[in-house]
């Protein structure tokens, strides 16, 4: 594992929203097949890190490379086609599109995406509601839809931004099962979470962010020794 080059390598990433400097040097490495979380309080820069990787935040310096390809040099619509799927915070379901149109919207970026029949088997609610407007779904269904539409594209690296935010515990559990399935089928997942208990059950490793920097990094095995400092970082 250690001698392999990481699938995704982020090094000394700095990013700006207009004039405001939000990321001050983020270093993250993810190996193929790993599930890694970004932890941290609101405003620590977790979402900005994901948005910088996928290319929505344009003003960036440092390194973001996927299998050796420099993503910083690519125009925004070429990043996803490298095989990255993005599930944004608040799901990003389009109100003027039906459930089915939402599902079919992202173009395929690689072979081996989940066939639509299988998606509907996995998420029967989406099939039932396929002609209703996307935002008429419940929050949990919208989250399923946001994840399902990415599974269709064949992307093998998934950026998941707070998939459990504002959802009922039973739905959170369901989303946990889905991420677990992704993990066992070889997907690589970068998960942003506030819900540490949720993240700790799924992830292999954790990065902690504070004030736009990565301030700590540990594996799930080291969790017990880290509990006190985590409480400090996350303010829980």
């Amino acid at each position, binding site marked *: 594992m250690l001698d392999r080059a990481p699938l995704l390598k982020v090094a000394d990433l700095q990013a700006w929203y207009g004039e405001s400097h939000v990321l001050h040097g983020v270093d993250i490495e993810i190996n193929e097949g790993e599930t890694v979380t970004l932890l941290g309080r609101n405003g620590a820069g977790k979402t900005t890190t994901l948005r910088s990787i996928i290319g*929505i935040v344009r003003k960036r310096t440092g390194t973001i490379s996927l299998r050796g390809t420099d993503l910083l040099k690519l125009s925004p619509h070429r990043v996803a086609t490298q095989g990255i799927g993005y599930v*944004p915070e608040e799901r990003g379901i389009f109100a003027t599109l039906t459930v089915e*149109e939402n599902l079919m919207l992202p*173009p395929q970026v690689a072979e081996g995406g989940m066939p639509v029949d299988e998606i509907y088997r996995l998420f029967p609610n989406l099939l039932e509601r396929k002609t209703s407007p996307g935002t008429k779904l419940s929050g949990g269904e919208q989250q399923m839809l946001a994840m399902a539409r990415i599974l269709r594209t064949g992307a093998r690296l998934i950026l998941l931004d707070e998939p459990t935010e504002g959802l009922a515990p039973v739905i959170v559990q369901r989303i946990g099962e889905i991420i677990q399935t992704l993990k066992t089928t070889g997907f690589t997942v970068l998960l942003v979470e506030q819900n540490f208990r949720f993240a700790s059950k799924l992830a292999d490793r954790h990065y902690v962010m504070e004030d736009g920097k990565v301030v700590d990094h540990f594996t799930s095995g080291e969790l017990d020794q880290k509990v006190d400092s985590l409480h400090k970082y996350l303010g829980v």
Partner: protein
Amino acid sequence: MLELLGISPIQLYGQLVLGLINGSFYALLSLGLAVIFGMLNVINFAHGALYMLGAFVAFFALDLLGLNYWAALVIVPLVLALVGVVIERTMLRRLYQLDHLYGLLLTFGIALMLEGVFRHYYGSSGIPYAPPPELVGPLNLGFMILPIYRGWVIAASLVLCLFTWYIIERTRLGALLRAATENPSLVQAFGINVPLMLTLTYAGGVALAGFAGVLAAPIYQVNPAMGSNLIIVVFAVVVVGGMGSIMGAIVTGYALGILEGLTKVFYPPASAIVIFVVMAVVLLVRPAGLFGREA
């Protein structure tokens, strides 16, 4: 009943047809404006001038190249689409990050320049453009006689409006357009070339204006002022229908055309302002427009 009001059915039907004709142009133009505004957030003040340019290109095609009306119906939208690509790529694109006002000022400037140039060379009296011989003559509908060309204009614009609606509301390309209208950066993050879509949307809206210009040439003559006469009413239509609403633009276009026609029958002095009165009322009662989504 009508006789009691001193209105002959012939007069009523005649004004209804005129209203439908005007409505056809309102609908075609406001449809393009609504699509462009929805995607690009640009209030395209040049729309009327581009409609006028469409009529002039049809005239040049006939005069210089001998290309007839039917050829113009195909070629003019393509030429205008190309003009749209050039405007979007070289100028509009630089303004997307700025306030709406800059796009409006730029396109207003383009409109003034286009109109000024054509007025300089062709004066303000119109140039006649003959309708195609196939469409000359009367069409007896039983209750009234309709010039064939007018019937054609109504039918052609209706078909084109519904076709555009279908593309936007019922196809994958349309789903991409609607999604990019809502959240362009997310659509881009899914791997779709949004800047290219913006260019094509502007080109498509301008092509619709060009098509309308060719349809209009045999009715209103080819005149440098034909666009500026129309554009203010078309803006009122878009406001009434709701900015960014496709079906709203189409339905409101025809409805206000008919309303204007009926006003000419029942109370002629008000016909020039009735659309603006409706606009003022709609703005007061339902600011998002009749078909617009409340923000």
